[in-house]
């Protein structure tokens, strides 16, 4: 905890730093119209990269995991080959289209064998073996391997691109924000809890949920608010919002209030104060984290447009990921990453952290389907954003700009 006991309440004026972003009410059509969603699919999602796991999950050659990309319904297989490379393939057998590897994760001796007719593929995707090959009519093994999916690694996170030709490289996609947040000890939090839930709302509402703290004193009166408001920040203001291209970072201001009794046990007796400010963290934060270098910084929300954000403190982080499933349906995944526990007492601290994050997000999510109903029924046609809801306004601005550009591209392609 810091000794500077009375931090100043952050002021108004975040939005004014970005004159290209309007300050008026915004049209809510993109939050529910099927036509807007269809355009987003082409102009945004097919051009993006999606985080699917961590390299630690496939530490050794032969380790693999499979996944069905929720938005695209594509089956993927991610593995490490004997050269140490991370490969991603369409998990679709070139014989007749069954999934090749049906298990969720595991270790392969070197071949993935389809459980339909037994075709086998190696760790580089090559078609190694056709069962009863003499009965085929000259199938060329050299060009019937698994189809590769574009894959990249950033800070131990594995990302794939659902399009054969990525619109931009992973590095360009992550851009300045990716560079400015590299160097955080992302890999030190080796333990994680993850849950997922389908929510009947537009993907942008899921992103909006943690992206403003204007709501904290009202929506989280007993959970998150006491920390944030302890120092007189009663309106729930941010330290700042940094916009980097399509991405953005919110910096959260808080000091530690009086913990609740079980929190006290976790923080003081179980080495679990990972989610509160620390002065002595033993490493230097990269410049994109706590960008204002405030001594009252506790947490950043680092959002990579369009579908992933990290709530990050000096000692741990939580990934919030949204997979769009339709104009008013999304899959939300929360993965809480914490440092490894040695003792049974520290294990209790991890549980306290996971339960707190989960329940606070359940408070947040109470609003999502209610807002979506108001959108779908036409009961709300405009949103008004506070100065400290800039991250939401920015997302709206980015989407609107991309869709307008898409319309121009389509018009000139037809013209």
């Amino acid at each position, binding site marked *: 905890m810091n000794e500077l006991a009375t931090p100043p309440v952050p002021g108004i004026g975040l939005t004014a730093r970005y004159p290209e972003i309007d300050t008026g009410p915004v049209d809510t059509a993109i939050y529910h119209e099927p036509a807007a969603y269809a355009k987003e699919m082409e102009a945004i999602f097919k051009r993006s990269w999606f985080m699917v796991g961590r390299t630690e999950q496939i530490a050794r050659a032969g380790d693999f995991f499979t996944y069905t990309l929720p938005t695209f319904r594509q089956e993927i297989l991610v593995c490490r080959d004997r050269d140490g490379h991370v490969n991603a393939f369409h998990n679709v057998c070139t014989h007749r289209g069954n999934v090749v590897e049906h298990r969720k994760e595991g270790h392969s001796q070197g071949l993935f064998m389809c459980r339909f007719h037994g075709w086998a593929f190696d760790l580089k995707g090559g078609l190694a073996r056709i069962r009863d090959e003499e009965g085929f009519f000259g199938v060329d093994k050299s060009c019937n391997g698994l189809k590769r999916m574009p894959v990249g690694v950033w800070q131990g996170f594995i990302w794939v691109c659902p399009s054969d030709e990525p619109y931009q490289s992973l590095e360009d996609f992550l851009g300045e924000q990716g560079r400015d947040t590299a160097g955080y000890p992302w890999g030190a939090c080796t333990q994680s809890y993850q849950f997922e839930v389908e929510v009947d709302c537009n993907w942008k509402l899921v992103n909006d949920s943690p992206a403003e703290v204007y709501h904290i004193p009202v929506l989280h009166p007993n959970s998150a608010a006491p920390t944030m408001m302890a120092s007189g920040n009663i309106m729930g203001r941010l330290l700042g919002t940094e916009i980097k291209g399509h991405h953005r970072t919110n910096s959260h201001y808080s000091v530690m209030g009086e913990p609740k009794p079980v929190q006290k046990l976790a923080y003081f007796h179980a080495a679990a104060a990972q989610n509160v400010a620390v002065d002595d963290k033993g490493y230097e934060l990269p410049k994109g984290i706590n960008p204002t270098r405030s001594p009252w910084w506790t947490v950043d929300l680092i959002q990579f447009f369009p579908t992933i954000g990290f709530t990050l403190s000096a000692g741990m982080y939580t990934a919030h990921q949204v997979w769009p499933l339709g104009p008013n349906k999304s899959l939300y995944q929360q993965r809480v990453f914490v440092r490894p526990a040695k003792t049974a007492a520290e294990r209790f601290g991890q*549980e306290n952290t*996971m339960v707190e994050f989960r329940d606070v997000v*359940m408070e947040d999510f109470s609003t999502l389907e209610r807002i979506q109903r108001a959108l779908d029924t036409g009961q709300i046609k405009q949103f008004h954003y506070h100065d400290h809801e800039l991250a939401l306004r920015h997302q709206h601005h980015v989407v609107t700009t991309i869709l307008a550009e898409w319309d121009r591209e389509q018009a000139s392609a037809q013209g």
Partner: protein
Amino acid sequence: MTTLPPDFADLERFVPDWVHADAPARMAKRQGSTIADIKAFYQAMLPRGEAVLACLRGHQLGDLPAEVETLLRLMLMLAEVAPAVEWYDDPAVYDGFPVGRICYTRLISDTGAQA
């Protein structure tokens, strides 16, 4: 027969109902309990918390005697129910999204060694 370390015999009566195998089971137990039952468990556990953690600090994950494992699972249950008592006065998140709709897809082992 006791299932907890001898110093914690007073908590023995909670073992049958409040020791569960993993986080999803603990979440289900909280959601399926009355707030009165949750409070009875919480109020008995809380004053023993520091002593329990002092014991748990002396044991490495991956090498827990059976009775310490049971004691740890009681504490993990305390973590699960704490918001019900301290934040909501209700097993559910007050006015919240129905937590029963969430599905855990990745767990941290309750007792295994971590690296």
